[in-house]
């Protein structure tokens, strides 16, 4: 029987996109479906740490070794998504010496370059570290943009013939006896050209093989075919600061605990995180105490965080998994390793594997292993090349170094743009059209927005993750309107309006956890601008009752109007 596609990948996070790219590069016909936009689930909700492996060097040395290997590969193939900040494991006076020694030995055992710094040396690197910091271990941690990296994988998969379908929610697995042969998706809601099928329609997509890469949602998918997949979703909070208080990843050097890392990320620093099991990956409490804990605990390492401005907080859900029978009660004890569940072996149901556990830094290695497995199942013998082929944007990083004024932009903006776009800079920014800045906070120009729109249609949240527009201090207050304007006239007025409202509410959602001090002031300014100056809160176009325009002052009563020659007002 003919199938729509050879391999169907469920989930548009880093793992799913990595698998799609891997298989497409091996010449397989791939379709990927994602419920929301790319990165909507866990990938878009991480703190952006590119692990050196140091974090796992004591507790989980297999993961640590894999991290340092992948860290080095990603620097090669995805240089435009990575900033090698370096990292410090910082010991406070009350943190155990034993653990510090174990950490150092663990790094050595796992091949992670590490050296010990005195407190004074650590403060030379990061002047805002607390004065009583005792010493630190320096490791090659970095910062990575999960959006850019994930999208680059998807784009490359597409360029190798894959179909990437966002806003397509799996509503059923197609199972015939002991064989899974596809899914039914509902094409989705939301404005614009971002779906290739009409909103609300359903589609059956059949495949030789299905890969369930939905992470924390893997259990939900499995249940559609009566398969039990026991993922244990665990939530963690991240708080975003308005500036980079540190330029190096700062880890707390102690066995485990919440609120023990600060990651410099683009123009911000991200504080993380907590680890708490939840029952529903779509619905869990986001609580004030979690935000307060981030600030209070991490200011023990970096005291100025206590007074600094946060711009929003967000929560992510880890797709933790442990083999049945382990019986771990504390989610921080569950391994960060990943597991490939072949449902033929495990449940006697052929045609599908699920991938659970794992972490962002090793997404490529996971994708490789799963792709190997899929190829074996399908009798395909090509091998993986993803460790050697650069992602789109990273083919020739020398462009990053060249002429910041090449594109007629102010140099800080050109620098940021070329960093984001990497080797695609010329293609995107070289334009004869005017190219004004649309997002001042992040220095994003019209050309970059238009490039993103050409990939995503009228989905401003998808534009946001590709460009960082609306992710700075104003949180979209000034720029979400101009971003929406860029959709017109390709999209009609109503679509633009809906896309703007959606982005505005999304930006508000994360800010609610940062509403004090400067950010509350910013929120009031944003509210005033959109409600007072534009009247977007009581937009007459949304009103049910018609306005009696005739009842209002039409200005004709004025005597002090300017009267152009020969015309009567």
């Amino acid at each position: 029987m003919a199938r729509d596609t050879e391999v169907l990948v469920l989930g548009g996070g880093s793992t799913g996109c990595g698998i799609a790219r891997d298989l497409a590069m091996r010449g397989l016909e791939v379709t990927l479906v994602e419920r929301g936009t790319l990165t909507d689930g866990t990938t878009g909700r991480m703190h952006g740490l590119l692990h050196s492996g140091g974090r796992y060097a004591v507790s989980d040395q297999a993961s640590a070794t894999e991290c340092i290997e992948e860290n080095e590969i990603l620097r090669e193939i995805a240089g435009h998504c990575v900033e090698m900040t370096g990292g410090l494991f910082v010991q406070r006076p009350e943190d155990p010496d034993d653990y510090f020694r174990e950490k150092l030995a663990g790094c050595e055992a796992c091949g992670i370059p590490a050296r010990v710094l005195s407190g004074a040396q650590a403060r030379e690197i990061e002047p805002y570290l607390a004065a009583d910091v005792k010493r630190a271990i320096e490791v090659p941690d970095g910062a990575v943009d999960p959006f850019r990296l994930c999208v680059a994988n998807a784009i490359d998969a597409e360029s190798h013939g894959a179909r990437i379908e966002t806003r397509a929610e799996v509503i059923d697995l197609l199972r015939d006896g002991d064989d899974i042969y596809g899914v039914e998706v509902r094409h989705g809601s939301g404005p614009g050209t971002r779906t290739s099928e009409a909103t609300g329609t359903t589609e059956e997509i059949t495949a030789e093989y299905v890969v369930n890469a939905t992470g924390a949602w893997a259990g939900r998918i499995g249940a559609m075919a009566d398969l039990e997949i026991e993922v244990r979703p665990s939530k963690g909070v991240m708080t975003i600061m308005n500036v980079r208080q540190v330029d190096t990843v700062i880890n707390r050097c102690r066995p485990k605990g919440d609120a023990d890392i600060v990651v410099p990320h683009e123009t911000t620093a991200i504080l993380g995180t907590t680890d708490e099991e939840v029952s529903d990956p779509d619905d869990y409490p986001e609580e004030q105490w979690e935000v307060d804990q981030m600030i209070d605990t991490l200011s023990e390492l970096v005291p100025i965080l206590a007074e600094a401005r946060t711009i929003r907080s967000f929560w992510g859900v880890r797709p933790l998994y442990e083999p049945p029978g382990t019986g771990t009660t504390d989610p921080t004890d569950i391994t960060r390793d990943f597991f490939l569940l072949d449902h033929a072996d495990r449940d006697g149901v052929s045609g599908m594997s699920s991938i659970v556990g794992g972490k962002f830094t090793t997404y490529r290695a996971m994708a490789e292993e799963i792709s190997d497995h899929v190829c074996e199942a399908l009798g395909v013998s090509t091998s993986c090349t993803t460790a050697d082929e650069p992602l789109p944007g990273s083919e020739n990083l020398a462009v990053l170094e060249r002429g910041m004024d090449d594109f007629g932009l102010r140099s800080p903006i050109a620098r940021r743009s070329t960093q984001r776009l990497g080797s695609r800079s010329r293609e995107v920014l070289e334009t004869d059209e005017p190219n004004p800045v649309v997002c001042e906070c992040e220095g994003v120009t019209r050309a970059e927005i238009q490039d993103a729109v050409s990939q995503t249609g009228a989905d401003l949240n998808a534009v946001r993750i590709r460009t960082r527009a609306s992710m700075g201090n104003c949180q979209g207050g000034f720029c979400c309107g101009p971003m929406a304007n860029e959709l017109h006239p390709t999209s009609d007025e109503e679509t633009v309006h809906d896309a703007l409202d959606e982005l505005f509410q999304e930006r508000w959602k994360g800010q609610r956890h940062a509403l004090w001090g400067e950010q509350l002031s910013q929120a009031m300014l944003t509210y005033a601008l959109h409600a007072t100056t534009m009247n977007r809160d009581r937009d007459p176009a949304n009103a049910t009752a018609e306005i009696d325009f005739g009842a209002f002052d039409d200005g004709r009563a004025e005597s002090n109007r300017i009267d152009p020659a020969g015309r009567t007002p």
Partner: protein
Amino acid sequence: MAIEDDVLVIGGGLAGATAALAAADQGGRVRLVSAKQSTLRHASGLIDVLGYTPSGEGPLSDPFAAIPDLPRGHPYERVGPDAVHEALDFFDAIAGDAYAGAGTESNALVMTFGGTVKPTARYPTATAAGLASDDRDALLVGFETLPDFDAPLSAAHLESAGVPFAVRGVTVRFPGLARDDAKLTRYAHLLDRDERVSAAGGSGAREALAATVEPHVAGASRVGFPAVLGDERADEVRADLADRLGAEVFEVPMGPPSLPGVRLEELLYDALSDAGVRVTTGVPVVDYEPDAEGAGRIDRVVVDRNGTDVPHRADQYVLATGGLVGKGVRSDRERVFEPIFDCHVPHPADRYDWFVDDAFGDQPYAKFGLPVDRDLRPLDATGDPEFANLRAAGAIVGGYDFAAEKSGAGVSLATGSVAGRGAGAEVNDR
């Protein structure tokens, strides 16, 4: 020795300037100190009085009809409806030809740069031909280098709001701009000075702009531009363009930085100068000292002038430092507070009760500010005046959501004039 005045106004926005002018009207020696540029440059420059009731009814064509029904504690309820009328008269006298709308009690509906319309009571003359409550056909013109205002999109949105006229939009290149990210003032100055924008003997900016737009006018009676049409010679620029286009020309109010807001600020500071008010800007008030007699009065405030503490003493004080945006009301993770006098700011103890989940919902934080008595004296937690000689005006007064109601400028005018007049009168009564 302290600097001595009869009335000291703290804050240089619309409320502070109005308070200082109203106090000066009473004949006293008045000083205004402000920490920094006022938030007027964030504002549209429109004078909203009341566009919607607190329950969302509207747009109101007659704002004054709704004022008597406002809830207790609303600033308009505090000062009374007559004071709102008087404040507008006061403003009309100050604004003169620069503003329109005084000829009627009705609100006008103004086109906004987001493509909606909104009710307002007074509008800059530059905006007068751009009312959505006027039924003449309109052309909107946007500039390729100003991403804030997309004229064709705004036109489409206006049509979906059911405006009683045909409206089209066109996007053109602004002649003579070398940079894609020129500041707004650059546009204004090009037109103000009518700078030559093309080589050898070429035309001036106004002629060039008119020539660019003219082919698109096609019978429209009025042509709207983003609010960049000149600064000091804005009337002349507009008249010149109107002549060349054969249509009336108007500005669509814009977001920050807002030239109409800046023009309003200039108008107010000229009036302050004419009224003999001493104005010091760039100096925050950082502290105060109570009267040694312990009579619940402020003896003096301390102004930070480049790191030096300078005492300012007055008989009466008006606090017009703004709300959350102007930083007259501040907050931290634990509480909301007024930073100079630590006046009482009612607010929920849990900061997660300061907001609701819908961005445009009924936001508690938008109403943060000082409760006041009918003389606009800030009240403490037990309902007694914080100080006998302190009044509050403008966005620092709590209990109303100016953004939802479209009442910000009206409240600033009404409370500013009542507070300033009260302070000046009390000096005279001494």
